[in-house]
């Protein structure tokens, strides 16, 4: 005989109640609600005299799923994350969404695609792209005749 003495339903609703209370508390303090899980990850773009930096917030997206392409000053990043319930577990709440994304960035300055670095750390992809050196002024001799 197997007795299951664990009364989870009541506990789940206490999670929910608390969540509601907590959300209310948050909203009273003027905080934003839960970060929306959309299929388009949030991006930051920075410029310095030397380089452009593009960041994507992609928690849980494995490095192997990422593809970056830089063509004609357009950076394209694609990636995917699946949400897998750990083996032997049952999902009681699912707010994290699986994502499959493609983002393109038209870079605001000419860049040198040969000097690009990409790093995935703590769920943030950071792509650093060197800006192209400005063309040197050329002296043009004036010939007679």
């Amino acid at each position, binding site marked *: *005989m*197997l*007795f*299951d*003495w*664990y009364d*989870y339903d*009541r*506990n*789940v609703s*206490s*999670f929910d*109640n*608390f*969540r509601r209370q*907590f*959300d209310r508390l*948050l909203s009273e*303090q003027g*905080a*934003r*609600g*839960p*970060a929306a*899980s959309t299929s388009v990850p*949030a*991006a*930051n*773009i*920075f*410029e*310095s005299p030397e*380089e452009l*930096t593009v*960041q994507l*917030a*992609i*928690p*849980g*997206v*494995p490095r192997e799923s990422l593809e970056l392409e830089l063509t004609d000053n357009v950076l394209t990043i694609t990636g995917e994350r699946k*949400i897998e*319930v*750990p083996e*032997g*577990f*049952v*999902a*009681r*709440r*699912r*707010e*994290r*969404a699986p994502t499959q994304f493609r983002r393109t960035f038209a870079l*605001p300055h000419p860049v040198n695609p040969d000097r690009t670095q990409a790093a*995935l750390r*703590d*769920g*943030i992809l*950071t792509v650093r792209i060197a800006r192209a050196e400005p063309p040197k002024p050329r002296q043009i001799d004036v010939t007679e005749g």
Partner: protein
Amino acid sequence: MSTETVAARPVPAMPRVAPPVDVYENRDAVILAVDVPGVVRDNLTIEIEGDELLLTARQGELPKGEALHLGFAPVEFRRAFRVPRGLDSSNVSAALDNGVLRITLPKSDAIRPRRIAVA
């Protein structure tokens, strides 16, 4: 001599965001999976007081340079949970991997399903 007190400059308030959470359960434990991109271990605290579990996590600083577009400024992730009765809050473990935090709360022996042999 004047005894002017120079107050420490307050840490600028970060916007607070409640991160999305999944809850998984099996007969031995409950797992909370939380998306906290940009958070390193040192900027993460999990406090358990009574039956409340409070998660606070701060994102790191932005790269240098002028921001042309800011889709995510540094935020403070914050979310609280009522720990259901029957979870062993003294044995909580947590792991951070690629921006995803996993908090494991084992069930106390009292509520684990058990087999009872009928004599």
